[in-house]
């Protein structure tokens, strides 16, 4: 058997695991590992400019591919800088393995230089964590970490590695295991047949059904099956912010995103529905609005791999714990067998009436029906930027986003027909996510258009990554929807604080983004008018080998609508414009 040092084992185990990229940043505690990477490891390492960006880049890589991302950081500040990205991944159930250096074992607990209790600090935001006690454990621990991160409800796993464990002069036998078993961890592999039968009966008997599908469908590889089920039944589908793309947005059965900034027709349909199939979703507060007013007539079927998601906020009438792909397969079979054996199938007339009602909602206030924003001003409306981008990219781009109004406009107006194309921080809402995530996506898909939709607030939270893009030639397109404000904050201040804009603008201190991009060796473009918009976007997207930073000035007065009315509102209580409400 081969003899390797702890540091070499880390490098080799990552290779044996088939890791494609390491996103990281060196420092004292991980120098042995970095040396091992340098000497004999073929995995490309992407040196970011801030550890937070390493986590987001790994995250973007993962969201766009389904493969677990890997982050390597040093102890202390390196580890704490990674925390926001770990929390971001945790909230959206993204598999990630984070290797953090730690001070030498004998110094732990002594407040040594760059010592932080990483296992402790990260505990509430990881799926699991390990502290390596001896080098021999490294291969199994790394295998376990990848297994835990990617299986069941995925999530980030931290491995904290004291420096002495990786020292080059002590070698141990190395063998990477093919698989690992954990007696205390066995995620569900199938849904309960009886429950699935019950669910399908309820679903088929529905007169006003809605399929409410989320990120879990994408992660669980259930998009195609879900699409098949919805088409077979001819039922409307709404998606959460995290689920966009799990059902084709251009299918007429798609009724848009739901929730706080969801589509009018989606929120109305949910509120009036009699049966809801919630799948890969968690009925979170940005969807449900006030819990005791949530969908008063609906029987709730809830499918999720994670039992804790079920009946946490909204009690499920028919809970099903299981992987979405197997449950959907069972459901499809069940729909067929009900039809064949018992001649039970959806009530076509009732479903037709339901569609008529939905189509009325669509016609009245649907965002895609006709513009729901005023087009009277000279200024570019943020919605127009997304609509134009959608046309120019033919809906085929990978779109990452930051957090704010621009994110909601992107979610509303870019129509995702495929899973893993829309990449945003839904659960944690992390400003600064979009750009580094786009780097990860572009590295995974070098031949595809990768666009980061951001705001002048968010982009400045990780703008240093322009340097990383120079170093590794990562030609993403940054669309900075520059409204000169922390727009989403401003919107709330307009609506709830009588327009007192406390600390939500920067008083003419924004950089010249064009020059800034150029300073890093990239292309900058400034766009002020609607006439320039489309040609500029076309031009930017045609420069395949250049990072293009588009600084697009948009109307700062624009608000995101619909917006659910809280507190105490139901899903159906929405502002539809500054003056109109349901």
């Amino acid at each position, binding site marked *: 058997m081969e003899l390797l040092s702890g540091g070499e084992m880390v490098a080799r185990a990552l290779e044996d695991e088939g890791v494609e990229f390491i996103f990281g940043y060196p420092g004292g505690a991980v120098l042995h590992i970095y040396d091992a990477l340098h000497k004999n490891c073929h995995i490309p390492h992407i040196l970011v400019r801030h550890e937070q960006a390493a986590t987001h880049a790994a995250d973007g890589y993962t969201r766009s591919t389904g493969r677990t991302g890997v982050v390597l950081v040093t102890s202390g500040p390196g580890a704490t800088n990674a925390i926001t990205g770990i929390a971001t991944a945790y909230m959206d159930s993204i598999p990630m393995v984070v290797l953090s250096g730690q001070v030498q074992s004998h110094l732990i607990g002594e407040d040594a230089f760059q010592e932080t209790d990483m*296992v*402790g600090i990260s*505990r509430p935001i990881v799926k*699991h964590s390990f502290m390596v006690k001896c080098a021999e454990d490294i291969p199994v621990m790394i295998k376990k970490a990848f297994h835990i991160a990617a299986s069941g409800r995925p999530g980030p796993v931290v491995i904290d590695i004291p420096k002495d464990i990786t020292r080059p002069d002590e070698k141990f036998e190395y063998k990477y295991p093919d698989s690992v078993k954990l007696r*205390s961890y066995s995620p569900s592999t199938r849904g309960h047949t009886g429950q699935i039968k019950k669910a399908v009966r309820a679903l088929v008997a529905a007169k006003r059904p809605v399929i409410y599908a989320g990120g879990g469908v994408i992660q669980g590889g259930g998009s195609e099956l879900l699409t098949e089920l919805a088409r077979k039944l001819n039922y409307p589908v709404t998606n959460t912010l995290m689920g966009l793309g799990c059902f084709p947005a251009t299918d007429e059965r798609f009724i848009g995103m739901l929730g706080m900034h969801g589509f009018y027709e989606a929120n109305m349909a949910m509120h009036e529905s009699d049966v809801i199939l919630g799948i890969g979703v968690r009925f979170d507060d940005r969807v449900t609005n006030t819990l005791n007013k949530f969908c008063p007539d609906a029987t709730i079927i809830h499918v999720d791999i*994670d*039992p*804790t998601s079920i*009946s946490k906020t909204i009690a499920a009438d028919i809970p099903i714990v299981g992987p979405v792909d197997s449950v959907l397969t069972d459901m499809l079979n069940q729909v067929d067998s009900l039809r064949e054996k018992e001649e039970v199938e959806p009530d076509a007339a009732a479903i037709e009436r339901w569609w008529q009602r939905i189509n009325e909602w669509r016609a009245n206030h649907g965002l895609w029906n006709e513009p729901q924003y005023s087009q009277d001003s000279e200024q570019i409306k943020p919605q127009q930027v997304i609509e134009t981008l959608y046309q120019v990219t033919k809906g085929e781009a990978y779109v990452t986003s930051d957090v704010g109004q621009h994110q909601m406009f992107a979610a509303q107006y870019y129509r995702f027909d495929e899973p893993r194309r829309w990449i945003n921080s839904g659960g944690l809402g992390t400003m600064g996510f979009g750009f580094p995530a786009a780097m990860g996506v572009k590295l995974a898909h070098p031949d595809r258009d990768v666009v980061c939709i951001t705001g002048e607030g968010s982009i400045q939270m990780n703008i240093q990554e322009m340097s990383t893009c120079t170093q590794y030639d990562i030609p993403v397109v940054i669309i900075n929807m520059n409204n000169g404000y922390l727009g989403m904050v401003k919107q709330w201040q307009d609506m709830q604080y009588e327009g007192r804009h406390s600390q939500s603008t920067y008083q003419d201190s924004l950089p010249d983004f064009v020059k800034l991009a150029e300073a890093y060796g990239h292309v900058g473009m400034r766009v002020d008018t609607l006439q320039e918009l489309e040609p500029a976007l076309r031009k930017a997207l045609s420069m395949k080998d250049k990072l293009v930073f588009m600084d697009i000035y948009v109307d700062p007065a624009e608000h995101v609508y619909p917006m659910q009315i809280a507190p105490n509102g139901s899903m159906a209580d929405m502002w539809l414009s500054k003056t109109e409400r349901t």
Partner: protein
Amino acid sequence: MRRILSLLMENEPGALSRVVGLFAQRGYNIDSLNVAETEDVTLSRLTLTTHGDDRKIEQITKQLNKLVDVVKVVDLTEGAHIERDLMLVKVRASGSQREEIKRTTDIFRGQVIDVGATLYTIQLLGTRDKLDAFLKAVGEAQIIEVVRTGVSGIARGEKVLSL
């Protein structure tokens, strides 16, 4: 409602902090907690008492099960079970009080396990209610120090919590 949850978890550093952290993080209550190794040194058994409505207890149980270190969880209060809490208590005992306290201790089937000039140390085993009742009987004024292990419990009959 009060519940006794008993769980087996990996006997590994960090496992306990994950359980305790879960309660803090999600705003669940821990009324008592005890933990020790089992006959299998790779496993620890942790027993805790908590309270909440059925929904809450269900969430707590599910969240505990979700922890990677936790091997098994049972709610002992769902079936017939035996619970015990061990209490050591120092009470003032001088003059005529000595006899009185000894008598109370006997009634509760406790033992005086240490004797000082002016105090007794008493050991008492039982359910939480019994220990509470003893403290009440002795009277607050007499009590100097109380230490309790927290509830541990086991199912009655054939039911066992094992791998």
